[in-house]
Structures are given as structure tokens and as C-alpha cells.
């Protein structure tokens, strides 16, 4: 049982941090809770930033995870616009950017990640953008106008989502991917090819196996020189080449850091009073039975709940199956599990109809599933992955057989 004298300090006011504070109160944490964020915003949802917030359809207010009043009711102090500069693990306190020192009983690092930047300083211009924060979108929105030529560097989810919004808003869009195919890190070649085709038929100029050699322009990037020798005139650039975990605070405090802050299946670092969750945490996922850093909202939230349980003395291992989603044009993509190591891909439905599910199998066991405009398959797929269901590939591909019937009887 926690006492009212305890202080839980959560560093980072993103999805993971917001979940920690709520889950602490849900688990009857009686101490003081302080949520510290370096952005000038209460916790908000990031996924719409590259989707309907970028397109202008979603309002700023609709992104808030909880209203300001909800934090008051939860008795959570939100210190936004505040940075944490250092952790003193011996005295159990943190140093803030305004010079204050704040003691903690438990410290949760939910520091997230930051966009990986292009190494070339010539790309450091006012019309070159990254997508991570509300401020990033506010900065980019004025140039995001009909008729402009948008260059997207990186054919991952962020880049493809931005490209799709660009087309929707009347921009001319080129996507450059250095790898031979888009989504190369996460999807099967068949799925990459599907997305390349889907983008091309909707007007995106998708180019793969190509990169930018040079950025030209004084105040702004006006043109880029490509690795095939050609040149492109551009009005604005969006870069989506991955994120880097914000693990420096932990590193300076002497905590173990390796592609993120290393934590166990209860979200604890080796210092049992310091936990880490979300994009910054290289955590033990009990379902995957290994250390992994996952950039996913549901995973961040699950880890947040795990940390809250640990703090409240109810250790429950983190065993959640990772899942993800991406909305591009009218294509609703839902993904569950991780496909690494698959030996067979089974398609259910027709790629050309733009409504299908791709099952990644290893030894006949469903490792992961990508469902495109197939929410009904996705919900069953989640259970197949979680329960490591062995399936008959023929039955899986046969749409006359219901997917639910392939689940083991309850």
C-alpha cells in the first residue's frame, strides 16, 4: 500500500506518461503525482499528427488525451513546459530547467523519442520538417498548401501518411525511400509493393532505392540533388526516417542504456525506484520473451499500466502483443505481432480489391498479421497471434471458411 507521503514523478507527458498517472490513481496510489513534460501541452495523442491533424480535420482540443479538469480531479500536478536536467539517484531527486530540485519516491522515465535528423547541415532549413510534436505540425502547416511540391524523405509509416495527406490537400508529392522498397523494415515485399502501387495510383511519385545527395537553397531548401543524378524542385520537405530514444537522462544517471533505457518485464531499471516506459524503454516483453524497444501507442500505454502496477506493489509482467495501425488515403491498415522470422505469407482476400489480410507464419504458427480494410479479420488476428495459433494455410486463404472457426475452441 502506498502512503500519502510518497511522491511519484513521471518525466515525459506523452501517451506512456499520461497512462502511468491514470493507472496509478486507478490502483489507489495515495501519494503525490507529478507529471513533467517539456512541451507546452497537456498529454495529447500523437498519431493524428501525421493524419487528420495535419490535414486540418481534427482540432487541437480533440487531441488531448484527458481534459485539464480530469488531471485536477485525479490530483495530478502537470508541470508542462519543464525540462528535467539531471537525476540524483543517491538523494532521490531531480533537477529541473527552472533550477528547482524535486524529490521522488518513484521516478518513471517516459521521455519518448525524437525524430532522427538528416545528417547534412544543408538540410537544416525552415522548410524542412519532422513530425513528432504539435509544434512541428504548427510550424509546417503554413507551407502545407495546395499546389506546393512536397518532398517526403523516408517511406515508412510517417512518410506515407504525410504523403497521403499531402495528396488529399492538393499538394504534389514525391516520396523517396533509400531502401529498395517502402516499409522495408516492417512489412513483407508483397505488402510494400501493394502500398507503392496504392500511392502511385493516387498520385504520389514513389521512388525507391534512391536518396538525396545534396540540398540546394539559401534560406530554404529549393531543390535536391538525387543519387541517380537528377534534380527535384521542392517547396517543402518532410523527413520521416525513424526516431532516436531519449535515453540521455538515464545514461547520465548511470542507468543501463542500450537502444533505450533497459528495463525488466515490470518496467524497472536496475534501480528499483526508477522505471521506464514507452518509446524510450528497451523493455522485456513477456510475450516476445526478449528485450525490445517498440514505437507504438498501445504498447506505451500497456507499459504505463505495468509501471503503475509495479509502483503500487502489484507486480504484473508486461506480456502485451504489440499492435499498430496506419491510415493512408482510404486504406485502414491494422497490424498485430512482429513478422521477423516468418517463413510463409498467406493472403486472405484480393490485393487488387484493397481489402485483404496478410498472415505471416512460422512453422504454421501465426506470428503477425497486416489487415488492410479488414477490421473484422484484425480482431480475430489479434487473438490468433496472442494465442500462437497453428493454422492450415489453405483454410486461412479460403474466404468461404470463417476466420473465427480457425481459432481453437474456447
Amino acid at each position, binding site marked *: 500500500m502506498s502512503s500519502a507521503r510518497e511522491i511519484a514523478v513521471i518525466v515525459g507527458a506523452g501517451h506512456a506518461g499520461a497512462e502511468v498517472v*491514470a493507472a496509478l490513481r486507478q490502483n489507489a496510489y495515495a501519494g503525490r503525482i507529478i507529471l513533467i513534460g517539456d512541451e507546452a501541452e497537456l498529454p495529447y495523442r500523437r498519431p493524428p499528427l501525421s493524419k487528420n491533424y495535419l490535414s486540418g480535420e481534427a482540432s487541437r482540443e480533440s487531441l488531448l488525451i484527458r481534459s485539464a479538469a480530469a488531471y485536477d480531479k485525479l490530483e495530478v500536478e502537470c508541470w508542462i513546459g519543464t525540462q528535467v536536467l539531471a537525476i540524483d539517484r543517491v538523494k532521490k531527486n531531480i533537477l529541473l530547467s527552472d533550477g528547482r530540485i524535486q524529490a521522488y519516491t518513484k521516478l518513471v522515465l517516459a521521455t519518448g523519442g525524437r525524430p532522427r535528423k538528416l545528417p547534412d547541415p544543408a538540410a537544416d532549413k525552415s522548410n524542412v520538417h519532422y513530425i513528432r510534436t504539435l509544434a512541428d505540425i504548427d510550424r509546417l502547416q503554413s507551407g502545407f498548401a495546395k499546389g506546393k511540391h512536397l518532398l517526403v524523405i523516408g517511406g515508412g509509416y510517417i512518410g506515407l501518411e504525410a504523403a497521403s495527406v499531402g495528396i488529399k490537400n492538393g499538394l504534389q508529392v514525391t516520396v523517396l525511400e533509400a531502401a529498395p522498397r517502402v516499409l522495408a523494415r516492417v512489412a513483407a515485399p508483397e505488402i510494400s509493393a501493394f502500398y507503392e502501387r496504392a500511392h502511385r495510383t493516387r498520385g504520389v511519385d514513389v521512388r525507391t532505392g534512391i536518396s538525396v545527395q545534396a540540398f540546394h537553397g539559401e534560406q530554404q531548401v529549393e531543390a535536391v540533388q538525387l543519387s541517380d543524378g537528377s534534380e527535384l524542385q521542392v517547396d517543402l520537405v518532410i523527413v520521416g526516417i525513424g526516431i532516436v530514444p531519449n535515453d540521455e537522462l538515464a545514461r547520465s544517471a548511470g542507468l543501463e542504456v542500450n537502444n533505450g533505457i533497459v528495463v525488466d518485464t515490470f518496467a524497472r531499471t536496475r534501480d528499483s525506484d526508477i522505471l521506464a516506459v514507452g518509446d524510450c524503454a528497451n523493455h522485456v516483453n513477456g510475450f516476445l520473451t526478449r528485450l525490445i524497444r517498440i514505437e507504438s501507442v498501445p504498447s506505451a500505454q500497456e507499459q504505463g499500466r505495468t509501471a503503475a502496477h509495479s509502483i503500487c506493489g502489484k507486480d504484473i509482467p508486461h506480456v502485451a502483443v504489440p499492435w499498430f495501425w496506419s491510415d493512408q488515403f482510404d486504406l485502414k491498415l491494422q497490424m498485430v505481432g512482429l513478422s521477423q522470422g516468418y517463413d510463409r505469407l498467406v493472403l486472405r482476400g484480393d490485393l487488387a480489391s484493397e481489402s485483404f489480410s496478410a498472415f505471416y507464419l512460422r512453422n504454421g504458427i501465426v506470428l503477425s498479421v497486416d489487415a488492410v480494410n479488414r477490421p473484422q479479420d484484425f480482431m480475430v488476428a489479434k487473438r490468433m497471434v496472442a494465442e500462437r495459433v497453428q493454422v492450415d494455410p489453405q483454410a486461412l486463404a479460403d474466404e468461404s471458411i470463417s476466420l*473465427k472457426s480457425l481459432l481453437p475452441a474456447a
Partner: protein
Amino acid sequence: MAKVIFIESSNAEHCVEAEPGRTLMQIAVDNMVPGIYGECGGACSCATCHVYVDPEWQARLPARSSDEAFMLEGAQEPNEHSRLCCQVKMYEELDGLVLRIPLSQG
């Protein structure tokens, strides 16, 4: 202000203030209603805000979209009263609405 009543499978009741214009999922999350996670933030992608609408209220809610219907089809224990509460916006006339949380969502 208008109220919405969420009832857990254990019969624990949560009568919460419901601001018109916010979705029922946001209202549940604002008020820490257990079992309503809203992981996808209202993108109709996760079904972690599944509820059963009390039959007397059902006709007053807008119809399900095809995405919502498909998501529910695959959800745990769906029935004809199932809704994803991220897809329903609160309005004054829903004052007193009763929503039950499935057993599978704790």
C-alpha cells in the same frame, strides 16, 4: 451537466459528467472508467472501448458505420447492443445513458 452511467461487469457503477461534443470513449477516459482504454484514440482500430448500450437507449444512438460493425464482429462477446463508444458523440438528450462494460474488459 448531462450524465452517463458506465456499469462494470462486477456491477460497479460510474456515473460521470458527460460534456456534449466529446465522444463517450473520451468521457470514460477523462473519468478513469476502468475497462475503457481507447488505445487507438478513437480511430476505430482497437475495440478497447466496447460497451453494451442499455436496450432502451439504443434507438437514440446514431447507427454504426461499417468499420465499427466489422470491428465489433471480431470483438469478444459482441451482441446486438454492442457499440464502440469512441464512435458515439455525447449530446444533451443522452443524459442518463447507461452503458455496460464487457466482462473481457475487466
